[in-house]
């Protein structure tokens, strides 16, 4: 059985100014242990796709207009609120873009991680030991002491590590990282990505990485889906897609990535998404 199957999923937003199709008829599937990058520009529907996996897009204004999301064979879109809460965190866990605001400022790291563990792994008796284990696993030094810290006492990189620890401590089958490094500077970005790569190897979970940055997916994700205006325009194996992009939008997107040591008169940009699509 596939871990995740998405069949013809459409998500639209009903607003006062008309209907917006954020995700149009997309399909893909993942086996256990797979890793997939969803790449696209802002507004291409990649975050909506990620959030839809556990129905986190608020309805209204959103509307799951059609399709199926099968997680371990069960349709997410037909689950009761209680069932979906089991999947959130326990089956599919998230790491979001802004670690600084994704942690609740009034609770210590320890009590925030403990909540997830209590919720999804009631059999764990020594919660503190478990927290220390996971904080250590994501590379936080001196976890026994640091777990009592409040979010504002941690640096951005450490906050994101804590977020990853929180997600992993629930032992999800699938980790969805929604632009996990966008808010971090380049050195920390490299550390976090290295950490994700290592943890994936260590715990064998599946990963969906949402990003607008082609530069970070190589070596972390085996497959790539390129999204453009709510549709998956290209899907394939990372290496071959980067070497030999087929869709004009993918080509344009890849050519925008600046390279060190390559002399370029001007940096390439995509002037207008529509023009790019017709290139």
């Amino acid at each position, binding site marked *: 059985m596939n871990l995740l199957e998405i069949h013809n999923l459409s998500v639209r937003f009903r607003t006062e100014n008309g209907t917006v199709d954020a995700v149009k008829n997309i399909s893909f599937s993942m086996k256990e242990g797979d890793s997939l990058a969803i790449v696209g520009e802002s507004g291409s529907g990649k975050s909506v796709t990620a959030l839809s996996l*556990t129905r986190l897009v608020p309805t209204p204004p959103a509307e799951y207009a059609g399709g199926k999301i099968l997680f371990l064979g069960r349709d997410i879109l037909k689950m009761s609120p209680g069932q979906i809460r089991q999947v959130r965190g326990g089956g599919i866990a998230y790491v979001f873009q802004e670690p600084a605001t*994704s942690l*609740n400022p*009034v609770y210590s790291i320890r009590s925030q991680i403990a909540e997830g563990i209590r919720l999804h792994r009631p059999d764990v008796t020594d919660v503190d030991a478990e927290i220390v284990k996971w904080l250590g696993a994501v590379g936080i030094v001196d976890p026994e002491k640091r777990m009592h810290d409040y979010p504002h006492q941690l640096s951005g990189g450490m906050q994101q590590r804590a977020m990853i620890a929180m997600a992993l401590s629930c032992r999800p089958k699938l980790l969805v990282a929604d632009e996990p490094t966008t808010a971090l500077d380049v050195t920390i970005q490299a*550390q976090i990505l290295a950490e994700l790569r290592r943890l994936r190897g260590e715990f064998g979970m599946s990963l969906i990485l949402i990003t607008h940055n082609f530069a970070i997916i190589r070596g972390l994700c085996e497959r790539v889906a390129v999204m453009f205006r709510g549709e998956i325009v290209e899907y394939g194996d990372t290496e071959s897609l980067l070497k030999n992009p087929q869709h004009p939008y993918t080509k344009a997107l890849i050519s925008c990535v600046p390279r060190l040591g390559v002399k370029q008169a001007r940096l390439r940009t995509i002037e207008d998404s529509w023009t790019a699509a017709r290139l």
Partner: protein
Amino acid sequence: MSSRSDVTKGAPSGILTGRAKTIVTATVDAIPQAVTPDSPFRRVARKFFHDRLALAATIAIALFFAVAIVAGACAFLHLPMPMQPNATHLERKLLPPNPANWLGTDNLGRDVLSRMVAGSTISLTVGFVAMAVSLGIGIFVGAVSGYIGGWVDNVAMRIVDALLCFPSFFLILTAIAIIGPNIWIIIAVIGLVGWTGTARLVRAEFLTLRESEYVRAARALGQSRMNIIFRHILPNAFAPIFVTAVISIPDAILVESGLSFLSFGVPPPQATWGNIIADGKTYFLDAWWLIFFPGLAIFTASLAFYLAGDALRRAAATR
């Protein structure tokens, strides 16, 4: 400097080791040394008590409460008091402040200080319990309506609007005229009328906070709605709620005093700050102490609560 060795020793991934030695020291020095956990509540408390005005207000409030609690305990347990607040001595009526009656006596020869002390129990009980009632209802309605939104929000807010249409003081007067004056009824009515402001405030806070990233993160972790509302959002809305709570205490005290002054309040002979003034108003040209001291008590207590609330607002301003 123990932390420096900690970081280099335990450097987790390949990134902090090897070639990048120079970077490591630089990074370690840049890490803020958070020695003790520092919760936002503790930070607000620290700032609050550094404010001299806040400290003075807190001491004043604490004194009022100490007096009220001791007086209440004495009355409740029938312990001996220096002077009975309701004992009349007609031969000593309308005496100005003197060594035996520090704040003078009223038209029935009752000791004003004793009556004020006894009245402080009533006045502060009214203020505190009415605040608790209105805060409880206000928080619940505001939180649920702000977080859930939709028709729930619409219904709740229209009820609030409808309640706000009535001048609350007259609503209270009407209720008491129908049900009869009794301290617990007065408290209940003041509390039941006063929650609308809190509900609106809490709702407004929730409308902003429900969109925050940590609420999304909590939802993504599979937390239940009630858990998100009361465990995750409410503590973040704590500062403005606490400020309104503190400020609504003197409001309730003033309403009770107003009711007593109009003789709709706590029935005599039970003393409250309001009805000491009410009893004394007939004689105030000859006996200024009858309204001056209880008035001063109301004024001081209200001012202390307002100042404390204001200082709290300032202490919580930078999150």
